[in-house]
């Protein structure tokens, strides 16, 4: 990021969910049980950039993505889009439409009883105020843009393949004419050959329309291919943020290192019988005190059990939340 104001600026965003507020808990004098899905996350995304957000299930990456498209309201913190708080009244007007999301599952994210034309047309009418012939023209344009044949417009989702459905999901997001798209595991459910087609489409659209992507995924190979920068999350916290090639060359945080080591690679010489990291993912309802990774970390020190390391700058514009790098 070269000094210019970021297009997306998330500042100390936290989001927690109440998972149990039963009368029984209240009778016992206990506060509602909370799950802290995202804790104190700050992340900036520049215009035209692709930032990868990686981590394992339950790390809060999807929750954060959903905050960006205002499906969730953060418990605390601020998200600025073009300098405007997306939850302020002004932001509600302007941001609507300019951050869109593509979902993981192309089977459940489309209404099975609407044709492709109806799915996209609905968005055009409601969000862009189009009517009549203008809708039909724009639907045709959008289908062309995502590489779907015009005759597919009158099909229902169950008559389409997984890759075609994901293209419809992309066309629906584009219908609003967004400048940011949150791709939440957008290619994870697809077979590799189709996955490559959709990745190419996303990159072509970025080249043509100048889109900005937050690319949420667990597949590091895909993230490396599409992203310029990458942020690694663990149990709701950002643990490292880096240029993608720097991260792959030299991961700083022990969790990033473990994640890269655990990723299977297409190289028979890199076989081993040793686990990349021991232990299970802790529950986000009762995360360990201190650094969330300390129970699994090979470098854990007494301090890690007590204090949570802050995300501090490291060389090459990177940031890392680990006491090994605190001086």
């Amino acid at each position, binding site marked *: 990021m070269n000094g210019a104001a970021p297009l997306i600026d998330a500042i100390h965003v936290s989001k927690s969910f109440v998972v149990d507020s039963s009368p029984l808990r209240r009778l016992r004098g206990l506060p509602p049980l909370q799950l802290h899905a995202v804790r104190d996350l700050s992340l900036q995304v520049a215009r035209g950039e692709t930032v990868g957000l990686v981590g394992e299930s339950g790390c809060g990456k999807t929750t954060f993505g959903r905050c960006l498209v205002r499906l969730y309201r953060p418990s605390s913190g601020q998200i600025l889009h073009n300098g405007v708080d997306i939850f302020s009244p002004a932001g509600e007007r302007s941001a609507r439409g300019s951050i869109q999301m593509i979902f993981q599952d192309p089977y459940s994210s489309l209404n099975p009883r609407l044709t492709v034309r109806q799915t996209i047309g609905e968005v055009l009418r409601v969000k862009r105020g189009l009517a009549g012939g203008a809708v039909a023209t724009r639907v045709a344009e959008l289908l062309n843009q995502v590489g779907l044949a015009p005759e597919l417009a009158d099909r229902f989702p169950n008559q389409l393949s997984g890759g075609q459905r994901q293209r419809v999901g992309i066309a629906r997001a584009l219908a609003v004419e967004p400048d940011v798209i949150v791709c939440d595991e957008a290619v994870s459910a697809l077979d590799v050959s189709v996955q490559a087609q959709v990745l190419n489409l996303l990159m072509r659209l970025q080249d043509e329309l100048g889109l900005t992507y937050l690319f949420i995924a667990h597949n590091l190979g895909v993230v490396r291919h599409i992203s310029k920068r990458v942020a690694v999350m663990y149990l709701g916290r950002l643990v490292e943020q880096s240029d993608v090639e720097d991260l792959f060359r030299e991961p700083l945080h022990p969790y990033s290192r473990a994640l890269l080591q*655990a990723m299977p690679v297409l190289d028979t010489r890199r076989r081993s019988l040793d686990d990349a990291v021991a232990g299970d993912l802790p529950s986000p309802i009762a995360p360990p005190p201190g650094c969330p990774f300390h129970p699994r970390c090979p470098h854990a020190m007494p301090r890690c059990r007590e204090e949570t390391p802050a995300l501090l700058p490291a060389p090459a514009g990177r940031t890392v939340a680990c006491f090994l790098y605190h001086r």
Partner: protein
Amino acid sequence: MRVEDLRTHFVTPSGVVRAVDGVSFEVAAGETFGLVGESGCGKSVTCRSLLRLVPEPPAAISGRVLFEGRDLLALPRSALRTVRGRRIAMVFQDPMTALNPVIRVGDQIAEVLREHQDVTRRQARARALELMGLVGIPAPRERIDDYPHQFSGGMRQRVVIAIALACNPRLLLADEPTTALDVTIQDQILKLLLRLQQTLGMSIVLVTHDLAIVAQTCHRVAVMYAGTIVEQAATDTLLAAPRHPYTRGLLDSLPNVRERSRYLQPIPGAPPDLVRPPSGCRFHPRCPLVADACVREQPPLRQVAPDHLSACLYHDRLAERAAAGSSSPIGVQR
């Protein structure tokens, strides 16, 4: 195990689905054999057909599955039960549905032992504890009376593996055993399977969609497409010098670290409908090397190099490219 001309066809209202159509392979003792392909290619059905775990009807299974001198497809059901779980065990993708949610995990492990071996309740429980330790469940004594929902996904898969190993099988069929798991847990489960294989000396058939997992685990691998095996070789040979355009296409579809280009090289089109598969070679509508002969006849899986089989008439062209030192894609448009 030797599989000869396995065919599993499903009769459906819209026609006969040829899910597995003439699959042959061998698994050597102590070896890990990979079956890899995209969804719907028939890899899971192949795996299940080996133990006749697909409902017949609607399925019709034919061919031969030779194991320890017997044809499993010709055995009466009662005899098959002495093979399943005892000589050949299976691990499924989803550890939640593979376990009974209302039975304690220790009892589920012990049940297999009591079914297949002449052991007392007490002996079975002691062995269950031992197995839980073997598969790396921490504090087995405290966990043996827990229910499946009290375990994480990775720990549940360890329980499923403990059940599979209960009778010291000679062969383990693992159908996408780590697909539902996180990366670090996937790594743990795969390494566990490999370590167990070394200590127990069993063979593993690993069904997966992920070529990188194959690279990390399998000695040999068969690539399936539309119900048939299109290529089979030692893993490093197959990855370094594939001799079938589908395998080449799969490798080119993956983001490549060495040759970074902004755009990937996907395989055009989509896999065919197995009710009406394309004539000739089933890959021909998507193949960059397609010629008239490919449309007319289905090329057989033939030996093209030592321990390397390919079902492509033009496998030489891929070999020439590999020899010329080029690993660049075979000119598929983006």
